[in-house]
């Protein structure tokens, strides 16, 4: 497979991650979400599929997730939050730990961070799309 194929493959996986992530975000926007239902848990898992490898990297560990490029996403976030990166980095780690601990309550500030992460994945997808279409 040439480079184009590799970009197409990563584009495919990143887009799937973004769609799942946004699906979960839209779910939590609904009024009266049952906080301890199985559906809520499954939507949290969709968020964690993306957040866990990012938090692992921010904690200086290597992630075992294969089909998600956390390095690319972290680089985009870091560029966008260069001024307060250390504080922002901590917020992502804390939010991930909160979901892992089973807390499914999402605040306005949490939504902002989750939207930032989704925007970063969207940027990564756009970048991969440009590369796979040969517009490098």
């Amino acid at each position: 497979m040439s480079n184009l194929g590799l970009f197409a493959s990563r584009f495919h996986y990143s887009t799937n991650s973004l769609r799942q992530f946004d699906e979960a975000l839209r779910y939590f926007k609904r009024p009266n979400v049952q906080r301890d239902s199985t559906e809520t848990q499954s939507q949290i898992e969709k968020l964690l599929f993306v957040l866990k490898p990012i938090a692992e990297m921010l904690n200086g560990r290597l992630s075992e997730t294969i089909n998600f490029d956390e390095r690319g996403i972290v680089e985009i976030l870091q560029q966008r939050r260069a001024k307060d990166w250390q504080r922002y980095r901590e917020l992502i780690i804390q939010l991930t730990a909160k979901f892992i601990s089973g807390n499914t309550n999402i605040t306005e500030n949490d939504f902002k961070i989750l939207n930032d992460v989704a925007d970063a994945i969207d940027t990564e997808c756009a970048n991969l799309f440009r590369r796979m279409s040969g517009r490098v």
Partner: protein
Amino acid sequence: MKDYLESLVVEQINRALALKKLIHYPLEYSELSGLAERCTEILDSQVLMLKELQKELHNREENDLRDIFREMRVCARYISSVEYFGIPALYHQTPEGGFLNKLVFRIHQEIDLPFNPPSVCCTATEHYFSHLFTNVIFAPLSESEFLLHLPDLYHELGHCVLVNMESVLRLEAVRDNYCLAFSKVTDHYNRLLKSKRREIGPPEIPMIVEWIHSQWKSWINEFFCDLFALCTVGPAYAWSHLHLTIKRSDDIHELSILQKQTHPSDESRMRILIHGLRNLGFDKEAEKISSRWSKLAAYWGTPPTEYQYAYPESLLSDITKLTLDGLRQSAFSIVSHEILTDTNNNEIRAMLNEAWQVFWRSKPEDFRSWEEKRVTTLRTTLR
């Protein structure tokens, strides 16, 4: 912003509908019906999603549109993907493409792929590549006239195996061993990272180790596909890799620590292929290929210092074993000496290996005459 977003949504719906009209039935080659269905299915699902977004837009405030904006962009990219990497194969149904589609269909039967075969389109601007979203393999235009690089089709089929391993029950062992292989990669680099962080040495080394680990997310796929090709088509794939490297590679020890490197180095790919050949019982072929490779590799000189961290021998050996075990347990038709020497079976892979034997023992022009005759026979057989 809301009004503009709605215009974008409507524009994309119209584009998807226009693309559907470019799929003309009846299809010239029935092997492309899977692609026609897939393109239609993708376009229909994007139209459905865009209509949902249009409804959702009416319930949103101006300052709450970020996810709708992203989803519209996802749909737009998907629709363009179908336009660039799906519809052309259906719109330009050439005899070259028709032949390769029939060939891939035959290969899919021979090696027992547990899912529908991908389609082929002869408009590649690089060597072979697969677009996994539309399930199309792109091949160079004149590829259907030659035999020596057709083994690369098996590598592309390996990518289809990776895409399908989550959903096809028969591929459970492939999936488990693939995950285990990457787990071994991560363990290796976590250990290395720990020791490099403790050492008093250049501070860049731990960063390089982290970088190399992140590249392995692409490299593991390529190694898997190389091994898949090797165990389904046999030594012909290793010869094809050698041949392509000689013609195309600018550095067989490639290791970029500044830019993303999508493929592992050609040297490491050859090393894993040699491991694979021995594992499959092709020891003599491994010797021959290895010996020729060593002579040719001298042309590129020695690797950079960081190369020692990139492709450790123990990892390549573990990955080979895990991958081939997973494939054996998943009931693929694994290549063997018997299959390649059985003159009655008429298998494509037997012919592709024979092509390499004839290539090495013939004069260049004699080989071309032989190759032309075999291609003609093959076309007649597949018609």
